[in-house]
């Protein structure tokens, strides 16, 4: 009975609930709790409608089951006594636990991540000396980020660029990040000073003397890269690890510039380095196990999650993300409203719309990378998307975010609206493509290319593909990764293959699934890292 309960408001405004008769059942207490929650709810009622809407806004329309269930549990639970609320919560939780998305995410974020960080891809039994002093070549966006990551992990770093001023930018970058860390209480002044003291910047090659690893991050130009390696090699420790941060250039080719190709490896970081956990280690044709082991250990030392892939233009991540952008831009060319393309990706769970991403990367860079692909490969497939990127860059001077204009217009760095002129550059304005097709064209374009990467040996394991796709190129996390997406698709790999065939029929040959897809995935389903969460 509620009348046996006293509500007392203290001077501090806090209300205490007391049972007059301590022998009263727990139910009484629950009823009192429910009554007080009802009062809270009454006050909240006016705001309740905003909660689901705010959730939809924050998740950018991605319909993730857990956040929705949590909100539902909180609101539904508050209407009833606490025992019933627990029952309601349990029902929601069981739905989540037994759902595919939880399986996907546990598979990726627990098992796959553990396998990758635990060294599944590191050659076993190879003992190597840990790296202590790192030379970073180039103090641009990437070089500065890499230098900071190394110094923060306690390594000595020497950053070299063409002038003392240019090299000094690496120090300024570190100062900025450290000042913020101190402000937020994540580091002390002393910590910050220690990190800064470990960073030396220079324009002199002899300052690199004794470094036992070099990470090159100069412009994306093979000749320049070879030249800087040649220049610094004599200064380094004789067995120094030789790494390039190139994002697309084949490692085997770059290794031709050095006399010890076995020590040469790709260490592909992601921007911004201090926030992106992934590192894509690229093994060239002649890269030795020791180099791989050292690169792997270095990656772990600086807190990165290293996937290991084999060589190939664009490796895994840069290549597959290209399919995503190509497909999206292609849909714009077909006449799908650009806003729909962005919405489709965001609602599919991508963290950024493909057109915003393309602006971010810069259309000029996308154009340049594509031309390198074009020049290097006979299999190069010209796509309508390429024409649009060329027009934006060459005819309309809209090269991307840095310039303040690309697919979007930018005002002082803030993204504004999509460029209305896009509508005039399309071939079939107003073409209606089902929303699900928009989403799956992007997801499938990436998944199919990832399968090809497995086929071609660029990818060594599904685990690396899953982790690399989520942490490196924003493949939707709910899928548990790009290959797990194929496995978990309704109907399994066979369902995926059938849907791919359908997309191929509607939108082009590039969606044709590999013949042996189903058999191959079935055959490898038992491998430890993949076996979990994909049943």
């Amino acid at each position: 009975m509620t009348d046996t309960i006293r509500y007392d408001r203290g001077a501090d405004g806090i209300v205490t609930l007391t049972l007059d008769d301590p022998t009263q059942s727990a139910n009484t207490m629950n009823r009192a709790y429910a009554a007080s929650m009802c009062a809270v709810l009454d006050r909240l009622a006016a705001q309740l409608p905003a909660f689901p809407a705010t959730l939809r806004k924050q998740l950018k329309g991605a319909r993730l089951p857990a956040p929705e269930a949590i909100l539902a549990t909180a609101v539904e639970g508050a209407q009833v006594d606490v025992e019933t609320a627990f029952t309601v919560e349990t029902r929601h939780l069981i739905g989540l636990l037994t759902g595919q998305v939880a399986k996907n995410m546990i598979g990726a974020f627990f098992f796959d991540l553990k396998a990758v960080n635990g060294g599944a891809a590191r050659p076993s039994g190879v003992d190597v000396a840990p790296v202590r002093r790192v030379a970073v070549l180039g103090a641009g966006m990437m070089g500065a980020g890499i230098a900071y990551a190394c110094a923060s992990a306690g390594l000595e770093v020497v950053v070299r660029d063409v002038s003392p001023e240019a090299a000094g930018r690496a120090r300024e970058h570190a100062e900025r990040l450290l000042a913020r860390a101190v402000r937020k209480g994540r580091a002390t002044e002393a910590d910050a000073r220690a990190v800064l003291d470990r960073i030396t910047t220079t324009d002199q090659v002899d300052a690199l003397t004794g470094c036992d690893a070099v990470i090159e991050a100069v412009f994306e130009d093979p000749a320049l890269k070879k030249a800087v390696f040649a220049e610094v090699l004599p200064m380094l420790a004789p067995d120094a690890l030789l790494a390039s941060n190139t994002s697309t250039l084949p490692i085997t080719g770059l290794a031709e510039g050095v006399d010890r190709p076995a020590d040469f490896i790709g260490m592909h970081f992601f921007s911004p380095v201090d926030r992106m956990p992934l590192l894509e280690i690229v093994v060239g044709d002649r890269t030795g196990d020791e180099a791989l082991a050292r690169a792997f250990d270095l990656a772990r030392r600086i807190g990165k999650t290293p996937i290991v892939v084999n060589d190939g233009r664009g490796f895994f991540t840069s290549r597959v993300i290209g399919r995503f952008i190509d497909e999206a831009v292609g849909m714009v060319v077909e006449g799908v409203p650009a806003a729909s393309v962005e919405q489709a990706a965001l609602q599919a769970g991508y963290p950024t719309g493909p057109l915003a991403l393309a602006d971010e990367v810069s259309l000029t860079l996308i154009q340049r990378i594509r031309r390198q692909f074009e020049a290097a490969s006979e299999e190069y497939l010209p796509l309508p998307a390429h024409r649009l990127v060329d027009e934006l860059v060459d005819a309309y001077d809209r090269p991307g975010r840095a310039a303040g204009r690309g697919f979007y217009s930018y005002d002082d760095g803030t993204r504004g609206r999509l460029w209305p002129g896009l509508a005039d550059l399309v071939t079939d304005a107003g073409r209606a493509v089902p929303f699900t097709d928009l989403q799956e064209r992007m997801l499938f374009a990436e998944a199919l290319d990832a399968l090809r990467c497995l086929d071609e040996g660029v990818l060594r394991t599904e685990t690396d593909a899953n982790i690399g796709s989520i942490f490196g190129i924003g493949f939707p996390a709910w899928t548990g990764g790009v290959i797990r997406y194929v496995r978990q698709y309704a109907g399994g790999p066979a369902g995926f293959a059938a849907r791919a065939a359908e997309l191929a029929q509607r939108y082009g040959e590039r969606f044709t699934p590999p013949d042996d897809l189903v058999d191959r995935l079935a055959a490898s389903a038992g491998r430890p890292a993949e076996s979990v969460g994909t049943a």
Partner: protein
Amino acid sequence: MPSEAYVYDAVRTPRGRGRDTGALHGVKPISLVVGLIDALRERNPGLDVGRLEDLLLGIVTPVGEQGGDLARAAALLAGLPDQVGGVQLNRFCASGLEAVNAAAARIRSGWEHLLLAGGVESMSRVPMGSDGAAWATDPQTALATSFVPQGVSADLIATLEGFSRDDVDGYALRSQERAAKAWAGGHFARSVVPVRDANGLDILTVDEHPRPETTREALARLTPSFATMGEAAGFDAVALQKFHWLEAIEHVHHAGNSSGIVDGAALVLIGSEEVGRDLGLTPRARIVGAAVTGADPTLMLTGPIPATHKALAVAGLTLDDIDLFEINEAFAAVVLKYVRDLGLDPDRVNVNGGAIALGHPLGATGAMLLGTALDELERRDLRRAVVTLCIGGGMGVATVLERC
């Protein structure tokens, strides 16, 4: 022997501003209804209340003093015989017309012969939304149905249709001008029954909401009402996730081009041919078609378009057979979209203004519009009208009225 459904009379209260300074704020909702029952009996001396069977009232916020089946309580308080029932119904903004249509269908069934139908809403006393709603407040439901509030839907329609702020303000101005002319010309005189106190003193005799002094410039200065809720609370995002080809919602609706919040009630006397003959009542019109239907719940306010088509099909008529249209001015864009989609002559639509000027007492409006349409058909000596309202949750109700 089933009969046609005849409208014998229609009355309404004036609409008071729906706030604590409004003239009807001191009047209980039940009193508004009882006042109208009294007025109907006075106006129709032949009306034998012993023949009345039920009172159907649309009430959109049926809680507190509007709750507990107010219709039955009102019937009793008005001194109607014990056998006259009372039922409250809720189809959001169309509740008043829903009551009329339900009554008409019951008359046409042949089972009943004389019914009172209408609605009441005292928005100053029982605030809109205070009854809660799973649709809006249950996360699972809201998420699954892409719930957004009406104002955001109205702005969404304007954005999709390309109606500019100037377009919607222009329509609002016309509503004010037409309402002012209608009042000056006595177009509402036949239906409006003054609200009086127990001492017989007038409390309100005219609609209190219109602002005849409205100018385009004044409207242009008003701040959009639904921008903050759309942007800060995430409702724009919800709408855009569904209407994904749009990049942003243009918030064009405000206090001057949305329906006003008011207090009021309306009643319609509906019966069979036989009862009219028995009681010596002259039928004013027949209800020849009625329909309810749904449309996209996020766009929400386009239901009148399919509802009109459906009601006309029921009546075996086409748009060309209709002389006048009354569509509730929930928001200016709702009317502009209706006129555009049906290809109507704007001079046949809401000729005496609408809820933008006069106000929208939720549960009562549908029955009020029926009376307004009927009066105007008679005044102009025309034959047929369509009355329709857009509805929360994405529904539409329409009624086709034909003079006898």
